[in-house]
């Protein structure tokens, strides 16, 4: 039994007919071909699959695609606007917050969600908010620095 769903992905309206057990992650990777949401553990722990669902960071491996019906999905592919990087992306590059890069899109999207909710987070708030995004390369030091710096840059622009 398949269910018809309609949703917006990176600003584009889309319709699909999906099995109820299809994860949003699989819909995005296999049907929309957006590989910036990454498969890591398929169990909601690593956060590599993070996307923004109506602006909130979710682990897309643990969200059924049918639950995204009528909602707005944003992936890392949509962060670049007019060939300009999002300040969080810029900060990740500048601060050396990227190594293998596999967790990076999820980490960046969680950071974007955080700075949307709290434009001036403390280091502890950044660490708490990003605790659902695992990274095995960096030890997180530069990721935290990058998010704080991006927040500062974004506040400067307002």
């Amino acid at each position, binding site marked *: 039994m398949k269910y018809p769903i309609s949703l917006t992905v990176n600003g584009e309206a889309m319709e699909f007919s999906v099995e109820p057990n299809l994860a949003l992650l699989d819909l995005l990777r296999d049907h929309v071909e957006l*590989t*910036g949401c*990454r*498969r*890591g*553990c*398929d*169990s909601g*722990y*690593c956060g*590599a699959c993070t996307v923004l669902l109506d602006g909130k960071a979710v682990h897309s491996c643990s969200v059924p695609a049918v639950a995204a019906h009528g909602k707005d999905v944003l*992936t*890392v*592919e949509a*962060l*670049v606007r007019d060939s300009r*990087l999002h300040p969080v*992306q*810029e900060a*990740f*590059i*500048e601060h*050396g917050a*990227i*190594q*293998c*890069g*596999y*967790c*990076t*899109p999820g980490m*960046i999207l969680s950071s974007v969600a955080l700075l949307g909710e709290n434009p001036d987070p403390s280091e502890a708030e*950044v*660490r*708490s908010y*990003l*605790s*659902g*995004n*695992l*990274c*095995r*390369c*960096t*030890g*997180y*030091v*530069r*990721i*935290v620095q990058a998010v704080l710096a991006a927040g500062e840059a974004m506040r400067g622009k307002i």
Partner: protein
Amino acid sequence: MSQFSVVGKPLTRLDGLRKATAQVTYGIDFKLPGMLYGKILRSVYPHARILSIDTSQAEALPGVKAVVTGKDAPVGLFGSRLYDQPPLARDKVRHIGEPVAAVAAVDEATAEKALGLIQVEYEELPAVFDAREAMQPGAPIVHPDLGSYQRNPLLCYPVPGTNILNHMRVRRGNVEEGFAQAEFIFEDTFTTQAQQHCCIEPHAAVGQAGLDGKATVWASTQAPYKVRTECAVALGVPPSRVRVIANQCGGGFGGKSRARVDAYCVLLARKSGRPVKIVLTRHEIFTATTTRHPSTIRIKTGVKADGTLVAREVEVILDGGAYGEAGEIVCWEVGQGAAGPYRIPHVKVDAYEVYTNKVPAGAMRGFGWPQILWAGESQVDIIAHKLGLDPLEVRLRNAVEEGSISHTGEVLHSVGLKECLRQAASAIDWEAERPPNRGRGIACLTKISVPFLGSSAFVKINEDGRVGLLTSATDIGQGSDTVLAQICAEEMGVGLSDVEVAVPDTDTTPPDMGAIASRITFHVGNAIRLAAADARSQVLALAADMLEASPDDLDLAGGKIFVRGSTERALTLTEVSTAAYFRKGGPILGRGSFLDEDLVPTDEETGQSPKPSPYIKYGATAAEVDVDPETGVVKVTKMASAHDCGRAINPLLLNGQIEGGAATGLAFALWEEMVFDGGRITNPSFMDYRIPSTVEVPDVQPVIVEAPHSCGPFGAKGAGEASTIGVAPAVGNALFDAVKVRIKDLPLTWEKVLEALEKKGEGASVAPGP
């Protein structure tokens, strides 16, 4: 610093923009038209004879296109120095999770369903799960054919008829005489647990194989040439009939240095005639790839009252699991590290790598050194406290320095150890008074790179004058593309943005043994210097012709070739390259090959060699912890990790390596443990095996110390692994300083701390005596 224009600069990584925007293709992302999906059937028994395999029902399932078993890869064995592992089980399985068959089907669900239709008849065999038990007479023998396996006699000394696949010995001085001279003798036994790499990108590959015998693999790998070799073993073809192209690799840490998915892709592709993709599940990664070696280490050390170390006897038992993987070399390296970075005249080491019926242990960031230095550096701390000496002073008193003789007989060079110790200690304010339940600890760290693995590089000058750099070094996150491009740019005399780094492809990029053993900067870097110097001399020769000058009077800097002392007589690299392309000599290609051929194999009986390894890097980790006596929770409040990498080619990226490795080392110290019930892993998920997140890992202060190495590119050594080493003893030593309990078994969980605190009153901790 200012002697270089590109080397030594904290430049951002070349692939940062692509990765921040997800414009990269990882192994798991790759697809081909007509591609099938593969799944692997794995043993459910730790040790069993395979009586029969019936694949007929699986083959009959609609959508299934190929099933392979051991019969499809009937000869050839995988291995590093000892070749002991069939690609697919033949007559026997030796661990739960061992590949027995593989299926390719139109989708993963069909392939998964087909696995359930394969009938395997097993006869269970007695199994052994404890390495020490596996060494006893009468233990089940995991590899009765050990004596007939092909091996590289350097570094690997198996004991046929037993489960010992390597016995590494070091004999220096006379250890009995040394103990007789000692005023105190300490003897302690330490253990370490299995740890998983936990690359966030699962192992993944796509393979294609034609009827002409040529196979192609799109891999997520640390070592394209090693994957090539193993795929060739599986297919029974010469290695050059396999082409391995390295997709982006989402983390390796030792776990992606072999063909653990790739070989099955090509076997299934050959049988089905279609490309096949396999992605391991997280459960498979935990239960069926490799782990860090669990170990039991007994150390006996003789010492003078002033803290001078005079004798050390070490016995190491590494639980290798069912196959050698790279464990035979881990064992050899453990022997190299067993005395610690100290001047000890009398040393005896016996390190054993032992087969058991568990998932194989293999290469993992640190490669045996986190284990051996956990033991050695904990014991040095025990000694210091017992003798009433400052643990930092005891280390400084005994530490090796330039010109010291190592316990394997090498005159040491490029030794920044003492400076690392001082700086790490100072970074956590070593001398400060601390409140109750807070303590500080320090540990030395050291690591060699593995010997006798060659590298090569091509440098081509494009028609636009920009420089193409071709190597088979994979940037698995460590930043090697950037560091290698910096080395190339520096040697050529161009800017970093003038260098284009090629994607490793074994049909076109020259041989290299992989991003393992912290060897890329040193080995590939040296090959690149040679290749760039070759290209540069060709450029200068042609430019000399064009400028009617002698090549000896020319220089190449900032992308320009000019007569020294004259700014007017100059050419751009573009002008020279264009001339080469169209008028004289043809396109300019530089080549460089590097092998550390000055090395001398260690003696089998004594482990002695005047130069056993390419380089040794040194460092120190210092930690400050708070211990909650109510809960037993250890919280790291400060950590500094100081490293002598010879020369920091890129301090920004080096700091990232130090911080990241320290986090993995801290996880090893405090939290992570693969729990076994017999041969079964009971916590194979991120839910039950917790890797640390942003809230657990403290800020780590990286410290760079430079003691340039005469053989390294611009003096550089390696950097990838060392920061994982030394964290556990630094934290354990800080724990002791805080609450006076000594725990000798990793990880330092709150349960163990609480138990130790309860027992403290009984005085059970340390019992040395003269």
